[in-house]
């Protein structure tokens, strides 16, 4: 049985998982995916955001369980599996320092030579800074810590917490055939946690050739992939903010190139066990500010970036192509043609024959999910706030699919405004709001011409009402076939009116969602000229 795994390491890993989740929500993901995160900085806002998003995804996926006859590109179609504790926070408590972790004090008494070696390798600041906010751009610290955690075994170090998610991973791997456990690691090379974690987990004995993964024929149950994310963003590190930060250890964008160079040299020399490795970065990064300076914790809350979307696409390419084995080493390269990022430049696959079809499918899925999210959070939210079938709600698509007497309590189950139906709709609505926020934030970066958020958002908080701004829904996808804004919300309603759902057993919330989803799909085909091909 083929199983897909995604391990996000550090802040960038968390942000890439965010993108993978959104692609899965849009119906562009694999059938199932187990994911977990590794980050000692528990308060990191990027991490909390991704953790919340995973819960929101799972809530929305279980709330919208009946997608009718739809077989392909199902929204929330990927079954996302997580361990009970989906984050491995590495440390058992918040005040762990490297000095404490390696028992420097004891070493000084018992083995002076080792203690002196530690003093040579690490500065006093590196030894004494609490690691509760991660490794602060110092992979040398992270590698000491992470290499201590042999996957599948509980660490003997009292400062380390066991990784529950890894235990589940090992149980699954032992049940797999050769290469059927497709594990994808993702992290940045220019920070601390990712740069330390990716090579550690990519080393032969950690996963790929671990005794539990080994087969008698010398092969491995694990097919190992990874994405090393090179510098791709900057943040506002004004002198005042840096001065305010009393900690001694931090990195600024100016440190990224040096850190990257050192990391890449290390990867080049080190024998790693990756079957497939993606290097992803962007020279536009200096213009792409994703937030303010912070050493970690709550301050590390970065806006999403298109490189995270590209890295998520790399992961999907890995899972899609993992069954295609070649004995020779192959290299692929994808790059922008110019300084702009457009839909036809997104590297969705290594397979040239599938490139166009998958680009169209991706654009369609993202457009459709954005449309669904926008409509659910504006028109549909207002709709459900009004009473059943009167006035503004006296419309064909609703009357045809929701026949009940609102005055009779026994009909409550048929009302999408009430009880479990309402909760289910709310679960999907909140997730899709996050989706719209994510994709429009990506589109807000300079020279990224994917989605124009000004067509959908009135300000940072509120979306534009579609009845008053009818052109927005047909104009948010940049660079597509029809002139922007020529397809309006009225055409969406026309599509909505043409959808028919005949399954009487379907719950009111599922029916409501399927109506909007079908209309969104059809609208995006019509408005943006996107005709997705059948998926492979």
């Amino acid at each position: 049985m083929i199983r897909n795994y995604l391990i996000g390491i550090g802040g960038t890993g968390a942000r890439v998982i965010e993108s993978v989740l959104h692609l899965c929500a849009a119906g562009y993901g694999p059938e199932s995916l187990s994911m977990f995160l590794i980050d000692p900085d528990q308060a990191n806002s990027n991490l909390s955001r991704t953790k919340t998003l995973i819960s929101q995804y799972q809530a929305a996926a279980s709330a919208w369980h009946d997608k009718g006859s739809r077989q392909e590109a199902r929204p929330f179609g990927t079954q996302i599996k997580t361990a009970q504790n989906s984050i491995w926070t590495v440390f058992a408590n918040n005040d762990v320092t490297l000095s404490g972790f390696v028992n420097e004090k004891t070493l000084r008494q018992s083995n002076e030579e080792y203690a002196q070696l530690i003093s040579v390798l690490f500065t006093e600041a590196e030894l004494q800074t609490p690691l509760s906010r991660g490794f602060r751009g110092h992979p040398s610290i992270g590698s000491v810590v992470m290499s201590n955690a042999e996957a599948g075994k509980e660490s003997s170090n009292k400062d380390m917490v066991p990784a529950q998610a890894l235990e589940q991973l090992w149980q699954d791997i032992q049940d797999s055939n050769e290469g059927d456990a497709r594990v994808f690691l993702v992290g940045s090379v220019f920070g601390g946690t990712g740069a330390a974690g990716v090579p550690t987990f990519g080393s032969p004995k950690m996963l790929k050739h671990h005794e539990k993964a080994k087969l008698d024929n010398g092969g491995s149950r694990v097919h190992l992939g990874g994405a090393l994310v090179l510098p791709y963003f900057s943040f506002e590190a004004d002198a005042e903010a840096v001065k305010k930060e009393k900690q001694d250890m931090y990195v600024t964008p100016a440190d990224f190139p040096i850190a990257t160079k050192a990391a890449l040299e290390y990867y080049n020399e080190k024998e790693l066990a990756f079957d497939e490795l993606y290097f992803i970065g962007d020279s536009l990064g200096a213009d792409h500010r994703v937030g303010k300076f912070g050493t970690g914790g709550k301050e590390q809350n970065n806006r999403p970036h298109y490189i995270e979307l590209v890295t998520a696409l790399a992961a999907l390419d890995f899972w899609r192509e993992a069954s295609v084995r070649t004995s020779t080493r192959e290299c692929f390269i994808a790059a922008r043609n110019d300084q702009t990022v457009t839909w036809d430049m997104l590297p969705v696959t290594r397979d040239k024959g599938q490139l166009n079809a998958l680009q169209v499918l991706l654009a369609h899925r993202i457009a459709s999910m954005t449309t669904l999210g926008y409509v659910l959070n504006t028109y549909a939210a207002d709709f459900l706030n009004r009473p059943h079938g009167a006035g503004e709600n006296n419309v064909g698509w609703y009357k045809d699919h929701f026949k009940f007497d609102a005055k009779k309590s026994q009909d409550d189950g048929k009302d999408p405004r009430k009880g479990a139906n309402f909760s289910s709709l709310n679960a999907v609505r909140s997730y899709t709001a996050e989706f719209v926020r994510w994709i429009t934030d990506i589109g807000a970066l300079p020279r990224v011409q994917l989605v124009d958020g000004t067509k959908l958002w009135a300000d940072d908080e509120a979306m534009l009402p579609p009845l008053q701004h009818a052109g927005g829904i047909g104009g948010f996808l940049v660079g597509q076939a029809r002139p922007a804004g020529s397809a309006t919300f009225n055409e969406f309603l026309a599509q909505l009116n043409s959808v028919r759902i005949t399954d009487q057993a379907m719950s009111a919330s599922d029916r409501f969602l399927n109506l909007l989803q079908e209309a969104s799909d059809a609208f995006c085909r019509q408005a943006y000229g996107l005709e997705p091909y059948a998926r492979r």
Partner: protein
Amino acid sequence: MLRKAPMNYLAAAMIAAVLWLLSGLLLGNYLADNISLQDMTTDDFLLRYRITTGTASFVGCLMCCSWFASGAKPAAAADPVGYRKLWIGLMLGEVLLGALALIGLVVSMLPESLTLVNYLVILAGLVLGTALFFWLCTLAMSPRPVEAVVPGKR
């Protein structure tokens, strides 16, 4: 299928013709057999009656077509309240049309001694070709965006 152009227009025209045949021929012949005229010949009465009901049916059909045309606009689905008002306005127009046609016939036939039953039969013919026709056609053949605003639609 009947809710899309040109099928709804053609079907409305056919229904208008059938209803006019019912009112103009059947009811007309019934009136001709039962009415007692003083100055006017039966043929003159029938001609006047059929022209009046025919004109009312024709204008009523045009009003129905105007509903189909405006209801098929993409903006219609976004404004059910506005289109409900429009439908009520057109329905009142149909009723007014029938009433005007009846008043026209009554005034032109004042010298004749028509009974209340005769007037009621004429009224029935006019209602059949105007308000009833409009309601039936819009109920069954309104474009999808506005079908729900027609009273009686379940």
